[in-house]
């Protein structure tokens, strides 16, 4: 885990890309540089940032959670179906359900050593079904008199909306926890090498449960917020969350081998992706271009990290050559 990320080559490149995008788009797209537009970009960076952060948690521990989108759908539906009773209650229950589910997945993975990728694919299928079951003919809707909530969420203060702020705060908290608690550090350890982490006296069970509960809850929050924003949640909804989340994490530079990555990466990735989508939204560019662009940038980032990775190995080999490397490095 690289504490001082600014020194990190992967990070610098991505920062550069982000900056270039901003400049390029401001130059080419009319009305791109405007406080409200910045507002909606930040808001959506926050939203997919939440999902990305969840996926990051599982990537850091060397796993991958592919079920976030379905979890988001189920949670959102639960929250809104209970809105009639009390929206707060609905949200609490939805998050609780997500948390329990996440813990269960983490527990199973630790206990049976089953591959998380495929286990969560099964969950992806199953939970999507559950979501459809809960909304047989019409989506769950926010009672009309509660629409003030969704307006409040997107009301702008300068470049910020309540929705954006909530997301960013949560992401910030997660980031702090990852860096300042032993559990956080243990996650990086487990991601680095499970056996060694065990050997170092870490309870992998707690770590996996934390990671998957985390990703489930963050996914649920994202789902609920999005549902509140649009005032309803349908059984088919939120499917774009998965690709968005993974893209954000990878474009942000979180290696899939695990053991590395911070919320900073996620936010950066989210920014890059959102800039592209907002260009699409403002410019009315055909959607096929967007999927080409996103796929392309994803591949580009993979290749970039691959290249940098090899550079680092070469450096390591070099450092092995002269025993004094350690002093010279600093």
């Amino acid at each position, binding site marked *: *885990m*690289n*504490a001082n990320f600014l020194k990190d080559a992967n990070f610098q490149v991505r920062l550069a890309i982000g900056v270039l995008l901003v400049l390029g788009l401001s130059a080419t797209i009319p009305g791109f540089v405007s406080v409200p537009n910045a507002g909606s970009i930040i808001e959506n960076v926050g939203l997919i940032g939440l999902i990305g952060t969840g996926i990051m948690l599982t990537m850091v521990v060397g796993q991958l959670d592919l079920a976030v989108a379905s979890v988001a759908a189920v949670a959102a539906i639960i929250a809104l179906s209970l809105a009639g009773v009390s929206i707060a209650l609905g949200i609490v229950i939805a998050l609780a359900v997500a948390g329990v589910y996440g813990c269960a997945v983490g527990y199973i993975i630790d206990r049976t050593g089953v591959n998380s990728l495929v286990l969560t694919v099964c969950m992806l299928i199953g939970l999507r079904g559950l979501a459809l079951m809960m909304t047989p003919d019409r989506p769950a809707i926010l009672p009309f008199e509660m629409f003030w909530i969704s307006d409040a969420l997107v009301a702008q203060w300068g470049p910020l909306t309540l929705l954006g702020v909530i997301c960013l705060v949560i992401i910030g908290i997660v980031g702090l926890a990852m*860096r*300042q*608690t*032993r*559990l*956080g*550090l*243990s996650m*990086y*350890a487990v*991601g*680095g*090498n499970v*056996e*060694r*982490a*065990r*050997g*170092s*006296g*870490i*309870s992998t069970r707690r770590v996996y449960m934390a990671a998957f509960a985390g990703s489930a809850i963050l996914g649920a929050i994202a789902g609920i917020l999005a549902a509140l924003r649009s005032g309803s949640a349908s059984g088919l909804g939120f499917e774009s969350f998965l690709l968005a989340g993974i893209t954000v994490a990878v474009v942000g530079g979180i290696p899939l081998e695990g*053991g*590395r990555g911070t919320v900073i990466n996620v936010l950066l990735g989210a920014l890059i992706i959102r800039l592209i989508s907002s260009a699409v939204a403002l410019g009315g560019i055909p959607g096929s271009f967007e999927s080409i662009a996103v796929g392309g940038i994803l591949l580009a980032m993979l290749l970039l990290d691959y290249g940098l990775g090899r550079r680092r190995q*070469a450096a*390591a*080999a*070099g*450092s*092995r*050559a*002269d*025993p004094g*490397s*350690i*002093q010279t*490095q*600093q």
Partner: protein
Amino acid sequence: MLEIENLSKAYGPVQALSGVSFSAERGRVTALLGENGAGKSTLVKVLSGLISPSSGEVNLDGSPVDLSSPERALGSGIAVVQQEISVLSNLTVAENFLLAHSSRLLNRRRAADWCKPYLERLGLGRIPANAPVSDLTIGERQLVEIARMLAQDAEVLVLDEPTAALADHDIELVHEAVRRLASENKIILYITHRLNELEEICDDVVVLRNGQLADRFETQDASINRVVHAMIGRELEELYPPRVEYSGQRPEPIVRLEGVTTDDLVQPLSISVCPGEVVATCGQLGSGLVEPLRAISGISETRSGKVYFGSANGKARSVIDGVAYCSEDRQHDGFFNNRPVWESLSAPALAATGIWGFVSPQRMRKSVDGIAERMTILPAYRDRQVSALSGGNAQKVSIGKWLSNDPKVLLLEEPTRGVDIGARAEIYALLRSLAEEGMAVLFASSDLDEVLGFGERVLIFHGNRMVHEAPTGELSRDTLATWITHGGLESR
């Protein structure tokens, strides 16, 4: 005092420990010996809370200790260095220390000062606490791990083959640290395959065999024979097979390096190995001793110079040129852990025939029986997964697989690291007989006794260059030690 009372552990069919009972005194270093698969690491894993025993219990100073989880074990005062290196290479040195720290919240600012003294104690003062572990050599990593154990100031310290991957001067540091701990009246369990470590630091000796307590005595009453007998249940006539004396001069070299340099070999190297010869490269870890082997096998790029095979020349493609290479990390790339033994044994032959065409599994299975016999791998195990074998037998598989396409050159890194004395004797005997059949054997080893005992000629490496070459007959252990530590005879 640490009392272990009839501890048993079964892995499915395998009875790794059965009713082991012994006690370790405070202020003394208790050596735990036994051949591969004797159950040492299993015992350690139980003590560290990694696995729960089938039966039995452990008492510390009279009161039972809770070993239900690694944290609990640590909490009740047992700190462990596992056999496999377990410092995390994606974290910094300091973070590795923090992992073992008790508080839930981390204080990163203080971490550095906190772990400094422990690092210094193991001669790692030059390593900054925020250095990523992935920049350290294997040896350094092992030392960091021991330092981390010190930092946990536990009552009981268990070290599972801590020196297996270390070179002499590092080993000395470890011994100092251990002695210090003993003088601090701690309880120390020390596992090793290097019998010469016994008189160096150990006070008591406990020997396991097939998961049972075989013998227990104090070091001063220990003779090598007694130890060996306890370990393998019989006398060992000799460890190293006798040399054959050569009449007349050697045949043409089968491999020649001319002015070869690689990333980790800074000075052009020119050597040659003849058929029937057993040559050792010796040096400390990371001194470049493995580079000739890697250059020949084509694992490392040659920056300059040429590698000649017989008369032909060019980069080795192991199969085609009859070059067999076993890396130092057999678990990682020595065999196919989750496949039947016979598949590993037949893999090179399969690969040698290219990827197009048909094969019959039955015939492949048959074809390896000869090798398996020769490697003394029991029929019962040939259809089992390699993962069910213990260290020694696994090593036999990783070497033996090459016999399936009878190579001309055999390249082995640390051929007997972590292999018990009985299995070692077998492996030496085998290699010798292969050499007599005209195979050239080149092995890299940081175990001086092995080099002197088994090698006929030794190439000595220091600081990524070859500093000396001599027939082993002309070297004493001390001169060799001086060469590899100082790169010369006049000590600076």
